[in-house]
């Protein structure tokens, strides 16, 4: 009984924790290596840039602290690099499988 309850709770927790990586808005947390469409990758790059400018504006208006902005900028840059590298790989190897 205890083991079953623990297992059910563990699985539920795992689903709650992992869900944003699969169903997050705009695929922002989705790993780039799982995306096989250059169009989608380009859209993601654009989305990261847009989010970067939004957060930059928030920082300039004092809505974000310096620390939070630094973290956000670092995160968005890393994600942009990640997506761009995948985009490079797909576009230069001419592989365009369906998503």
């Amino acid at each position, binding site marked *: *009984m*205890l083991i079953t*309850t623990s297992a059910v*709770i563990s699985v*539920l*927790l795992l689903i*709650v924790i992992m869900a944003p990586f699969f169903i997050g*808005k*705009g695929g*922002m947390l989705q790993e780039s290596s799982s995306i096989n469409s250059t169009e989608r990758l380009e*859209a*993601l790059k*654009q*989305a*990261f*840039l*847009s*989010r*970067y*400018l*939004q957060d930059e*504006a928030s920082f300039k*208006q004092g809505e974000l602290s310096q620390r939070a902005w630094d973290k956000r900028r670092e995160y968005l*840059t890393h994600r*942009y*690099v990640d997506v*761009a*590298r995948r985009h*490079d*790989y797909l*576009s*230069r*190897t001419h592989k365009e499988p369906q998503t």
Partner: protein
Amino acid sequence: MNALFTLAFLLAMVFQPSGAQGQDTTKPANRDLPIENGIDPDSRKHSWPSEGPIGDQFREVAKELRCPTCTGLSILESDARFSVQIKDLVKEQVEAGKDKQEILKFFTERYGPWILRSPPKTGFNVLAWALPIGMMLVGPVLIWFFVWRKRRVITSLGVRPIEEIVDEMNTRLVELRKLVSQAPQASDKPSSPQGGSL
């Protein structure tokens, strides 16, 4: 999410193992053990050499031998019954004029290399000494090699270096800022020209 954590906490409280419930923490967990808990009550009656060359040699040998019933202690630091017996033997042998290696060999033949606190630097046991040092020396080189090889493979697949991608990102950000500043001030927040907001 909070409700889920609360539920998990409550379930864990309800279904905790029965042994953990109502346990009297003021009493020892294992009541079958004697009060002395393996310590020889007569250990204070024993005396071991503490001064002069014999005392030095006794301590040097005793700190090399493992207490079988303790965790991480030498027989020198332990008053357990078994340690007391071994210390008596060490004392006898030191007083009989045997040197450190002979005494350690005596115990190794009797109990195996396990009785030594540090593995002997011979045969297969050399690995226990050489491996950590070797990994410390070779490890950084291996890590550098694998990172270098991965970078080389990635570059050969047409993926740009990170610096180039960051430059591209900065260039595009400058262009986007220009676009946003030229656009009618309909909103305070900049929006993506391609509608790719997250």
